[in-house]
């Protein structure tokens, strides 16, 4: 996935063990989550994660379109991940491509393993993820946004689904890669965790790692997910805060 035009590989890891943006190896980029960003959707969330900006909307359970996708014993989860044309430096050709199809599929399948779809037979739960600005790790940011949006939509599920990518940069295992690290690093390993059970429901890898490195990366990723989980819960608590009226404008 390397940026072919780039000639020089930047120094990804300083001698002091700091990364290109000054982070430590086990440090996340700044993450802020807002639940309920859209009025019309049944649930929604907006996530800013490093330089990523992602909006997610959830509709449903509702009638299935097209009809033939309807399942008699459970709801179908239809997920659409899309990058805006302006989300990257060079214009992204709008519409479905192989990459966004794949990401839509793996995110949808991750949610199928936590959502209690049997409670709403013959319906559809539609998840829309729009990447407004991309800087590596958008499938994880999309998953986090969509998961908060699903909870905001009142969809029954086993747990929220925090996600993060771990990678290998400058020979070291690092948490939450940003663009330069993703482009010039040696490996990228996105994952999504069910905190309640400790199961991973999304795991992909690009690049190369040794077996001990993989074990270390999984460990680091799970820790990162638990940190993200807390922020997801806080975002929902803020939205549904129980307190006196006032403060909030009419």
């Amino acid at each position: 996935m390397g940026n072919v035009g780039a000639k020089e590989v930047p120094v990804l890891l300083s001698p002091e063990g700091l990364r290109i943006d000054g982070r430590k190896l086990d440090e996340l980029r700044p993450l802020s989550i807002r639940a309920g960003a859209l009025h019309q959707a049944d649930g929604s969330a907006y996530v800013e994660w490093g330089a990523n900006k992602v909006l997610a909307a959830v509709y449903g359970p509702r009638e299935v379109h097209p009809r033939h996708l309807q399942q008699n014993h459970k709801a179908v989860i239809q997920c659409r991940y899309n990058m805006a044309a302006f989300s990257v430096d060079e214009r992204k050709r709008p519409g479905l491509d192989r990459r966004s199809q794949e990401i839509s599929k793996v995110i949808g399948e991750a949610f199928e393993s936590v959502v209690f779809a049997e409670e709403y037979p013959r319906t559809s739960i539609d998840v829309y993820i729009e990447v407004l600005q991309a800087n590596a790790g958008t499938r994880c940011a999309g998953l986090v946004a969509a998961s908060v949006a699903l909870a905001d939509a009142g969809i029954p599920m086993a747990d929220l689904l925090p996600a993060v990518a771990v990678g290998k940069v400058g020979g070291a295992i690092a948490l939450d890669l940003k663009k330069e690290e993703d482009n010039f690093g040696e490996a990228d390993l996105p994952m999504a965790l069910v905190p309640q059970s400790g199961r991973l429901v999304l795991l992909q890898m690009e690049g190369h790692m040794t077996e001990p490195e993989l074990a270390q990366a999984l460990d680091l990723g799970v820790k990162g997910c638990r940190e993200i989980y807390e922020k997801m819960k806080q975002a929902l608590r803020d939205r549904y805060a129980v307190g006196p009226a006032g403060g909030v404008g009419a």
Partner: protein
Amino acid sequence: MSRGHRPAHRRRGREESSSRPSGERILVLPGEELPAHGLKPGPGTYRTGGKVYASVLGLLSTHPPVVQVIPLSGRYIPKPRDLVIGTVTDVQGTFWLLDIGAPRWAPLHMTGTPWKVDIGDTERFLHVGDAVAVEVENLDPTGRIGVTMMGDNLGKLEGGTIVHVSPARIPRVVGRGGSMIQMITRHTGAQIVVGQNGRIWVNGSPDAIRRVAAVLRLIDENGHRSGLTERVESYLLSTLPTSDVGPEEPRGESAGRLAPDDTPPFLGPTGPGPDPDERDPETNEPEGP
């Protein structure tokens, strides 16, 4: 259905909003373990590995022997005998399909209407886009929702506009014993039909409709907070049209303010109001003696 002064309701509304024990209301999120010691997992929960967890976002409710989560968001989940407002999405030979904001569309069969409909003649009575007030009659395990138009306050809704709020907010829109909706009606002179599905039909002068819609938005956004009654009342008083409508003046549907034509005399289900235990998790602390 009185639209006059109801001091008892107003007083109670105040108490309800100012003296709520907010410490009692615990917000839980999906995946959160619940204190279930020996309790049966009810709706909104699941059990695994001998522990009980929340499956939806909502308020924790432990009324032995059941622990459950009362949802704070989400689509309308139909209950028999609910009055709901729907729009026609499809017309078939013997029935219409209604969007009532539930997970599925609800079929309204021609025999469930007060009209004499011939097979294939459904189009004469309701078109796609028409609004109706109907009652949920039955639910089957596959999620099919049967509705009927036979009953008081049911029928086609002519004119007016439909405002959407979260179904979880309907108890606040109605208020205890109908106090909130009566106050709104009194201050605006609008005709209001509240559907339990979060759809509210409003008719009246353009100004009345606008003010009711603004108040409903206020309730939708602040319905989980206390002090709501005061805020709604102060909003209504601050937006009084200069010409007419005194707040305490009991006011019928005088000609000129409401559509004088064949608008059916629907008034919201403000009578007995919803059963507080069933419908109003947010204000279900016991009332005073």
